[in-house]
């Protein structure tokens, strides 16, 4: 069983979460090209190592989370609320 330490709910079974893929900066819809959109939506690096990912805690706090996870060992280094991350990025 894989545990994810939700910053709101504490450690929970990964089955309570939905994996939403690798995180990354969203291109500006006003200026991006269709090719860039395709790359953003469908192309992933699939890194073996530390990856920043988006997860949704659908069976818990219903918050989007930014998770730093090692894809080989499943070790989780940091989990933060995505809203908090976005607020810090906007400053």
């Amino acid at each position, binding site marked *: 069983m894989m545990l994810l330490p939700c910053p*709101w*709910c504490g450690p*929970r*079974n990964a*089955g*309570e979460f939905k994996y939403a893929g690798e995180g990354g900066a969203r291109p500006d819809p006003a200026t991006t090209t269709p090719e860039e959109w395709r790359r953003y939506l469908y192309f992933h690096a699939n890194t073996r190592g530390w990856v920043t990912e988006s997860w949704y805690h*659908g*069976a*818990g*706090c*219903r*918050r989007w989370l930014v998770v730093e996870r090692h894809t080989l060992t499943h070790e989780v280094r940091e989990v933060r609320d995505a809203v908090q991350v976005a607020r810090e990025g906007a400053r």
Partner: protein
Amino acid sequence: MSDTAAPLARSPIAPSPATVLDGWEVSARAATGASTLSDETPLAKVLVRAPFDGAGREALGVGFGRTLRTDLGSGAVLLVGSAPGEWLALGAPGTAPALRTALEERLAGTGELTSVLDLTHGRALVRLQGPAATAVLAGVCAIDLADTVTPDGTALRTSVAAVVTDVVRDDVAGVRSYLLHCERSSGQYLWDALLDAGSRSAVEVTGFRGLGSGGTAR
């Protein structure tokens, strides 16, 4: 054919045998055992959404993960901090409109974007109570139910028998008791799953209990 009969509200959990209480069809059973499962769906259920760290939280008096027994002018209410920025208010059957109004008035002065929604007929609510309650619940959910982790007055949302459920520990007169709140369409399944898990612990079905007396602020 007469069209003047009062409407009868029905829980998603089929009662057997049935009787009518406050306009709701409820179970007429009276359990004799110590551990019981009761359908509490007739309780008024009002959902509040507001910023999790704003003035709304202060106005409601309870944060995420805890419960508070209070009176908002519509009778006894159990306020549950069910998620970040989300509260569930439970009141006596038939008090949902008054409870919604009372909550709207309380939040009106915060100046925040809030919403208050009556979910009474859209959700199912059951109470698992008695000495076997913890063992039965532990069989269908992965939460640590020890007193040190989830004491009386704890609220959390998790997967119970694969159903997203608000779990509220609401002991009654010192007896372990859990309120389990889920979508209406999952109510009968959750009920059956709990009865199945409780079959070895002699969990019995009993009639509507209501909020009970409980404590005060926790």
